Structure formats: C-alpha cells, structure tokens
C-alpha cells in the first residue's frame, strides 16, 4: 500500500480508474435492470397464469419464456406476453379468462410441457389448480341477483356444485320469490375462468381474480364458536346461563311497536 502522499504509479492509477468506471457502470446498469425486474412482478389482475404456476415471484425466477406450454395447450388458451403490448412480464405465459378460459384438461398438457418446473409438475389433478378465484363482483347487474334465473356461470363450471353453488335467498322485491345467488367456494374454485367467459352480460359480473385480490384471510387465533361446540359435543364453558333473546313485540322490552319494530327515523332507501 502506498503511504499517504506517495503518488500512485500511472498503471495503478489507470487500473483504479478503470475499475471504478466499470463498477460505476455496472451499478447504474444493474439498478436499471433491478428496477425493471421489480416492475415485471406487477402482474395485472386480468392476467392469469397457467395451471400449476408457481407463486408469481418464484414463477419469474423459473419460467424461461420458451412457450412450450403455449404450444401444447389444445385450446389456445395461453399466450406469451408481447413486449409493450401486454402489461405482463414480457415473454411469460398467461391467459385472459374473458377471451379464452382454461378448459381444465385432465392430462394438463401445459404442465407436462414445461421443462423448468415453472408450472409445478406436482399438480397431477387439474381440480387442484389454483389459477385464481372467481368473484361475483357486480351484484347490481348479475341477473340472478335481480331475481331472474340466468344460472349460466353455475351451469358451465367444470367443478359445478363444489366451486360454485346456487344459494337461495328471499326476494325482497317481489316478496314471494326466491333468488338463486351464485356463490363461489374458493376451496374448490380452480380459477379456470369458464364462468367469466360465459357470463351473458356485456361485461362479466363474475370475474376470476388472482387470490391476492379475491381473498381475505382469517386471523390464526380466530375460532368459530359453533364449530368448536360441535367438535366438543357440548358447550365449551359449563354452567353458562342462556338468557332469553330480545324479541320485538308484546311481552318484551320493545314497547314501541306491538308486533314489530318501528324505527324512530326513516332510513334512506328502506321502503316500508
């Protein structure tokens, strides 16, 4: 090491300059690349990955963008993202449910074709796929919510009666009909997108979203009392007194309206 004040030899100075310049350039180029990499992770909500795709972050470390999955999909569901056209990391496979949904092939040819494991070969039953979760996003326009019998999303679901069911509810509007509410059960929904594709409205009322958007999560320590009670086969705490429920009408502490509940003010939009 040259002591302080000793001038560096020209070669050494040059070497240090070159090294500094090279590493400076690398830091700049590397930062730009890292910035692009961060950008690439933002997968738009309409873009669904093929069945078995690893979680997005791992997927981008695994998929080499070869397109073999695209080639082996018999329904032309999958596409490779094009640079500057699709907001998906360029060259990676995805599909848009409303355009061409996944037909949930039994032999899952896309997964079989993937050479890298970006589509996890452990997925051997297509019913276990998790491409997204369907959500009935527009209850105001869904025909079943209007009290009609459309049922199309329910009928087309390849996992009918498990992934999607029709739950009956009272039709307040007509007063004496039932509504058949399409209800998705995330545990069984594969996110294939058949429902979104088939929704008869000009813009689908049911949409497949990535799980991160479609789902909340329950806190670990939450327990459902009724489930615990059933599991135990009796009350969880012995000797609790069951107080009578507060009911409207005569004989209760609701003295305002015999036979019913009368609000003290008019709620907007609540017809009487």
């Amino acid at each position, binding site marked *: 090491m040259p002591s302080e004040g000793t001038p560096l030899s020209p070669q050494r100075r040059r070497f240090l300059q070159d090294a500094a310049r090279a590493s400076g350039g690398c830091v700049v180029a*590397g930062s730009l690349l890292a910035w692009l*990499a961060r950008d*690439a992770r933002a997968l738009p909500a309409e873009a669904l990955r093929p069945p078995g795709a*690893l979680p997005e972050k791992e997927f981008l470390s695994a998929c*080499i963008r070869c397109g073999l999955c695209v*080639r082996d999909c018999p329904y032309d569901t999958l596409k490779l993202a094009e640079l500057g056209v699709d907001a998906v990391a360029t060259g990676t496979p995805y599909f848009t449910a409303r355009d061409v949904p996944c037909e949930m092939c039994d032999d899952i040819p896309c997964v079989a074709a993937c*050479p890298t494991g970006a589509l996890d*070969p452990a997925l051997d039953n297509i019913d276990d796929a998790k491409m997204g979760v369907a959500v009935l996003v527009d209850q105001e326009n869904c025909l079943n919510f209007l009290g009609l019998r459309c049922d199309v999303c329910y009928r087309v679901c390849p996992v009918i009666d498990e992934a999607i069911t029709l739950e009956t509810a009272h039709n307040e509007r007509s007063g004496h009909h039932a509504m058949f509410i399409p209800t998705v059960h995330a545990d069984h929904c594969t996110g294939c997108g058949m429902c979104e594709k088939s929704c008869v409205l000009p813009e689908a009322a049911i949409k497949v979203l990535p799980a991160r958007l479609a789902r909340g999560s329950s806190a670990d320590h939450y327990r459902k009392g009724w489930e615990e009670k059933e599991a135990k086969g009796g009350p969880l705490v012995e000797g609790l007194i069951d107080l009578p429920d507060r009911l409207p009408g005569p004989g209760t502490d609701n003295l305002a309206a015999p036979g019913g509940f009368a609000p003290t003010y008019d709620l907007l939009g609540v017809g009487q």
Partner: protein
Amino acid sequence: MSARTHMPVGMEAIQERGRLRAHKYLLLRRASQLLFLAVFLLGPWCGIWIVQGTLAGSLTLGVLPLTDPLILMQSAIAGHWPEWTALIGGVIVLAAYALIGGRVYCSWVCPINPVTDAANWVHRRLDLPKGWQPKRSTRLWVLATVLIVSGTTGVIAWELVNPITMLHRGLIFGAGFVWAMIIAIFVFDLFVARHGWCGHICPVGAFYGLIGAKGLLRVSAANRTACDDCMDCYAVCPENQVISPALKGKPGSTPLILSPDCTTCVRCIDVCAVDVFKFTHRFDDKVAAPTDPVPAPDPRAARPI
C-alpha cells in the same frame, strides 16, 4: 505493400475468386442463421412441428430438449432449481458449444447477428467514426451484473431486456414492440458505437466466448507468411483485436486465433485474397512455409498493429 492495399475492402478476394466464392462463408452463415430460424417457424407458419419453443428452450421432434444455459444459470441464481428436462437441455447445449468452441452461437445461430452485421456494413459504407468504444471487457462486467441482479431480485434478469430471445420469440409468437428494440440496436451500432452491441455489451456473446474458450474449432492464420498487409481481414472482423497475435505473431508462435472473442464468423477467410486463414482444429498449429522466394521483411512481426 502493394497497390492492392488501396482497393476497397474485399475487392481483391472478389477479383481473385469471384463474388460467390469470396462470400462463401458469409453466405453459409446466413443460411445457417436462416435455418435456425426456419426450423422454429415451420411449426407456427406451416404446421410442420420439427421444433417447438424458442431459443430459450425448445423441444425437437418431441424428444430432444434444448435450453439456453445462461438463462438456466440465472434461474438457478435467482433461486429456482430447474426440472431435469431443462437441465438436460442446458447441458446438451453447453457441451455442444464448449466442444465446438468459439462464439459459434454468435455468428451462426443468433438472430441479432444479421442486424449488427448490417449496421456494420452500412457503417463501413458511410465511413463513419468508430464512436464510443468501451473496453472489450465491458461485456464480462455486464454478464456479472446480470447474474448479480438475478440473485438480488429473484427474477431471470437478462430476459427482461434480452433482444436475442425477444426477437426470436417475437417472430414465432408475435412481436409487440420488439422491432423498436431491434432498430435501437441497429442505430446504436451504426451511430453510437461501432460493433457496440455484439463487440462490447452483449453478455450472451461473452458467455459463449467463455464456454467456447477451449473448444476444438479454430481459425488459423496458417499461411501468414503470404499476408500482403492489405488489412482487409481487420476491416471485416468484428473483433479484430484477435487477429494480430496469430497473424503478426513472432516466428514460432501459434498461428491459431485462440482469443475467446473470435466469433468464428470466418469472414477473414472469405476476404483474404492470398488465403492466409483456414478453418481448422485447435491442435493444428502448423504454419505454412513461405512460398515467396523473397522472404517477407521481418520487422513486420514486431510492429504493433
């Protein structure tokens, strides 16, 4: 030096051997590049599925997997250990290029090469200045950066910008704005830096240079005593720093072009009217005896070029 020195680049070879034979390897190379593209395009365009996929990863005749080893390496560094199919494909490609050697990928396969060659051709025609010339080692730094960024971000980093796979994939699956990228490279090579992309920046070329460094296939300036200093090989060579050690080496030094930078494009063979260069293997380091009765003046050997 003869008067021929002042003729346009490649002219003597054309006079000597005719236009076709003076472009023999160039034409072969273009044919090879076209072939590598065509086998991938036959499927989507004509329904003849010989090869599926892209240069990044492909399946030939349904059995032979091939994978880009640099992409696999980034993938592994980014934290994903690829499945066997991809690994086997990667090893096959790696072994092939390591055995054949040189940057054969660059000159005979890569779809960007015609673009940068075209830029260089126009560049020579217009007699433009060299422009920005970063060190040749820059591409190694870029390669290192790409690997480091893959590791830190967990994304196969070079594939976010790699114009090679983008162009190739674009032709096969639909291009989007890839053409803008290709134009950018062309303009960069033409106006900003001569041989800028392939010669200084592309980490893929650097990678293949490294793995092919000990490969068999080499160009040798075997007949170097016949060199008449026309400098045509220097003019056409995309990496002309590799020529001097072989061509102007002291008597007794190897005539083989051993630098890993040589792209094995063999334009030097095409363009040399006195047949100094030939295609050979790395153990063939014979130098042809001078045919000229008057030996060439020796100081030439010592003159740095």
